[in-house]
């Protein structure tokens, strides 16, 4: 498991741990600051609104410092957080997911879901066109039937559904 010297296989767990610790520390500071602003003390009618959350923020900040210090001291920890090569499949699902959610606002959930599932099947699974068309269409039809008719919970719709009169 020893990595070759000079070749970075990926960010070390230690470094990512420190960065996440710093982010958490920042969150703790923001929580403390915002609650100090609205008042975290004692008023005539008891504890003010920021009383409880401010103390929670302090705990977050203190514990994140402990996490950072621990990570700094664990110099022997050579583990890799994630290998660069393994980050590619993660990106292959994360970026389409971001696109999917963005598209949902304009195309509606049904069209976006059909494109998303079909696209990933074609791209990652290398399925033939017939399956790539059929599976997502059936899925969307089932979701449509379930949500619009059975549960009567409306999901976001786009131009296509409007064209059909929904």
């Amino acid at each position, binding site marked *: 498991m020893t990595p070759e010297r000079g070749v970075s296989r990926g960010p070390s767990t230690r470094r990512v741990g420190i960065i996440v610790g710093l982010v958490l520390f920042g969150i703790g500071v923001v929580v403390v600051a915002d609650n100090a602003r609205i008042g975290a003390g004692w008023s005539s009618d008891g504890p003010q609104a920021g009383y409880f959350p401010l103390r929670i923020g302090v705990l977050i900040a203190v*514990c994140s410092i402990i996490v950072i210090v621990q990570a700094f001291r664990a110099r022997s920890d050579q583990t890799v957080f994630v290998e660069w090569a393994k980050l590619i499949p993660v990106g292959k699902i994360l970026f389409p997911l971001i696109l999917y959610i963005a598209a949902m606002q304009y195309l509606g959930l049904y069209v976006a879901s059909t494109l998303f599932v079909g696209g990933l*099947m074609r791209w990652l699974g290398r399925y033939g066109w017939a399956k790539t068309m059929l599976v997502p269409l059936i899925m969307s039809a089932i979701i449509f039937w379930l949500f619009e008719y059975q549960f009567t*919970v409306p999901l976001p719709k786009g131009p296509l559904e409007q064209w059909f009169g929904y």
Partner: protein
Amino acid sequence: MDELRLLLNGFGVVLTWYNVGLMMIGIVIGVIVGVLPGLGGPNGVAILLPLTFSMQPTSAIILLSCIYWGALFGGAITSILFNIPGEAWSVATTFDGYPMAQQGRAGEALTSAFTGSFVGALAGVLLITFVAPIIANFALRFGPPEFFAVYLLTFCSFIGTGKEDKAKIVISICIGLALASVGMDTISGQLRMTFGQNLLLRGFDFLVVVIGLFGIGEILITMEEGLAFKGKNPDMDLKVVLKTWAQLPRYWLTLIRSALVGCWLGVTPGGAIAASFMGYGLAKKFSGNPAAFGKGAIEGVIAPETAAHAAGTSALLPMLTLGIPGSGTAAVLLGGLMIWGLQPGPLLFVEHPDFVWGLIASMYLGNIAGLIVVLSTVPLFAAILRIPFSIIAPMILVACAVGAYTVHGTMFDVWMMLLFGIVGYFFKKLDYPLAPLVLALVLGDRAEDAFRQSMLGSRGSLSVFWSNGLVGAITTLALVILVWPFVSRLVARWRQRPGAVGSGS
């Protein structure tokens, strides 16, 4: 026996075609949820919860709790056939379950796992039936300080018994509490941590957070690990089932021992995982043939499954009686209670006996139905796992997006789900526990209210948490559990001193 009369009443509530149908649907969805990567108990329940808003609370809880039982059963399928624990508490099941499957004894392993689960669940339900009313009755005397002390005990036992880094557990809990306090303060009406964003007025919904952390985060991790499911074939038929059942009475002591361990640990939060390992360890210790463990001992499958299922079931005991969920899924169910307009806690037994006893009755029936469903349909669920991940993953993501959207019908929640998915990925990889975060998020408002009301009564003095024997005992117990690991580590180090220089940890 007052409980029996109420329980029979509960059976009357549950035994309608509609509710029994929901039970079956719940079990099947639950097993699928338990089998698929990226969908676990908490996440599966969270996605479906918004759909139950318009249902009768009793029918809704039957559907959702059956998803929970199904997920508990489902965890065993992946552990045994694919050597992949679907949930953390089925890790111990892989030790002997997978070797058994490799030896072509998958049917035997699955049957004993399911039957063990059933016995464990039954023990848990019996515990709930007879102990819950007593605790609820007792807890009726609780005031705000007592409730805050119990919340404190919950959080402290997560910190004290959790295997993760203590600082990381505290951070997890505090992030949950901080997220819970975002939005309009219910007492003063002031806006907290909204930073001028109208979208944050309502705060963070725990359902969206759960779907993100457990669903999206899990999918990202699964993609990174590049799971290819190559499992063993289950050879299940009635003959195997009956043959295995004929052997099981021999292991009655293991069953009872594991069920007791499970019930005990299940009541404490986060106990199911510890229970499964402890059940396994005890079975090995007391077994006549400990060397067989790890190589396909049937006891090695029964013990952790019985304990985990007993723990998973008895996790609902503190949820029903005190309003404190013992597990991540129980936390989501508790959130559901509040959405349906029921106040969890001791008053539930007084004000909504139909609901409580209907739920308890459905636990008996749900687990019987679950046992029958899983025993007869394992090949079907194993086939679902063989569907390539490139089809399953996008579909799970669509389900997550639909689930997050339906909570309040806003796109903002879907983006939040994505954000928490990425948070979940980092937290999981860096060993920050997720269950305490969810628990704190669900309990946050109630814990804060209890704290503020106690403080009001005592004019800001913490001595209110020792103002009488009851609250003092709970608070002290919480603090003891909190510092216990540190004390025992110090003691261990002190004892090591005369010998060689301790390597520390």
